[in-house]
């Protein structure tokens, strides 16, 4: 069914979600929240791809979305494993504890 949503609105929404994701990553100190915000950012980009795909009626948008999903899944699994390990070693999930890699 045809829908007449203008593409800018969707892009705007994706942009907004993306910015909210970044804000989440910067503001929160707990690693899990940062991971969540990263998920939000991924979704935002997925949205942008799908919107573009549907705008040009090309399947590429959705194919990219699928790849993003795959990547997100892999990323989350490793991210969570890292979180487990960090929690195991440092007994806390504060990002500022991980400061060894300094100049």
């Amino acid at each position, binding site marked *: 069914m045809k829908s007449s949503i203008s593409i800018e609105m969707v892009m705007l929404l994706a942009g907004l979600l993306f910015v909210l994701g970044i804000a989440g990553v910067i503001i929160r100190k707990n690693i899990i929240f940062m991971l969540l915000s990263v998920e939000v950012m991924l979704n935002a980009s997925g949205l942008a791809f799908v919107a573009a795909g549907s705008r040009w009626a090309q399947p590429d948008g959705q194919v990219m979305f699928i790849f993003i999903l795959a990547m997100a899944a892999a990323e989350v699994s490793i991210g969570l494993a890292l979180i487990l390990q960090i929690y195991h070693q440092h007994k806390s999930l504060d990002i500022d504890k*991980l400061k060894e*890699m300094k*100049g």
Partner: protein
Amino acid sequence: MNNLLWLVPTLPLVSFLILALAGKHVSRVWVAIIGAGSVSLSAIITLIIGISFLSLPPATGNYSQTLWTWMQVGGFNPKITLFLDALSLIFVFVITFIGALIHIYSVGFMADDKDYSRFFACMNLFVFSMLLLVLADNLLLLYLGWEGVGLCSYLLIGFWYENPANGYAARKAFIITRVGDTAMAIGLFVIFYQFGTLVIPDVLAKAPILWHQGAYMATITALLLLAGGVGKSAQLPLQTWLPDAMAGPSPVSALIHAATMVTAGVYLIARMHVIFQLSPIAQMIVAVIGTATLFIAGLSALTQYDIKRVLAYSTISQIGYMFLALGVGAWTAAIFHFVIHAFFKALLFLAAGAVIEALHHEHNMFKMGGLKNKLPVIFWTFLVGSASLAALPLISAGFYSKDQILWYAWASQSGNPLLWFIALLGAFITALYTTRMMILVFWGEAKTAIGHHPGKLMTVPLIILAFFSLFAGFIELPHNFGHFTLFSNLLHQVLPETVLKAGINTELQFQVLASLSTFGGIYLAYIFYYKQPQRIEKLKQSGFAMNLYFFWFSGWGFDKLYNVLIVKPIVFIANINKNDVVDKLYQGITFVTIRLYQSLSFTQSGSLRWYVMGLVIGAIIILSIQIML
């Protein structure tokens, strides 16, 4: 006889090479034979050449022998050519003859020194360089001899190298003479660019054509050459090195710092007389320098207690007389005084050396005394030398040569009464300090015992030199003593006649005045140092006399002046700039880069949130640029 000429300088050179390379493996006797023998041999050859030169003088007035072309670069091709004319014949004769005597003397004098072969090697190298200087036909070869002589004086002054003071005196001598040499080198450049050649006869031929009388370039060149001469002959501005040069052994002082090297300046000015004649100002400066030096050195000699330093200052003063003679245009008189001075000054130095060695290396005259009957030979020869130095009328040769200079100082075209009067005063002072020296050393009671009597090898040269100091004067008698001017006739082939002022006739008055001043000097010294020594005590009380004494003693304060004026600033600059201020520039660059990298590494704080913040800021910047464009 032309082809024998190259033998004269090469013999000392060959013996130098033998002694320098194989000095250690040759026994002392052979070292003496090679060392002294080579110089005596070249003296004999010089005699042969001299006789043939005088008996049948060559058409061109000189012998010339080209060995090889030193270098050939565009318009500049100096050759190694030996050039003997009347002037250089006399110099070569003096150098080789007195050199031979001094070598024979030093065989005895240096007998117990361990560096025997090194001493003779350096002395032979010196004789070679001096001969090269005098026989050079172009100024570059002359410069080679000039610097070679400077090198040998450095080596021989610092001969006893254990004592750093000798090393310091040697370096001082070399560097001060080097200042003069540099001025002379610049003179050489000017001459080359004015005439396109450095060959002396060509230069002297072209000079009057290219420059008119009193030309600006002539004066510049003459002054530069004079500066070279002043450096080497220890005249006024650069004379502080000679008294310190007495650190070397006595034969060295006799040969180098009395007879030959210090008169190199006189030779240079005499040889380049055409340039000096072309600029009267320069000639006047030569006269003024001569007079000032003779006066200052005379007074300084009066106050010395070390016997060799008295003789050193007296040498500076006598060379001042020669410069005065050159300055007033009395060319032959200057050379005549050079010859006579070479004889009696070498004699005095050798005799002083014998005295010093006899008194276990005691230099202070006030500790000597009463040697009259202990060392008779030394006494008599020393007496003859001093008489000649003090210019005892009629008997000593010194009288004839110095009297001629005094006469020309007054009578010559460019002479003037002031120069004559100071010269007369100088003669009076010379007589004063000579007699003072004689009395202190030979009369009065003996203060130190005689250690060792000088051997035959040392006394024979003294006697020969004494003979010449007495009778050498007769080859050039003043006009009113019968017209017997053998010496100046020979020299007039090379050097011009002395032009006298108009209406001057009575030379007699001046001779009487000169002898009066000599006798006055002798009498005054006799009173002060023999008759009533208490007069000296009285003099010592007055503060002014003592200040004057110390002022004269330190060579009129020139040493302190140069020390403050030149030595201190350079040493100061050298110390503060020890590790190269330009290097600081590069160390500065490295410091800035390190500081920069440290501040950047501070931003790697390791916290994730800081990095994402950086990301966002980057994004904002890019987007804002996008907006603005």
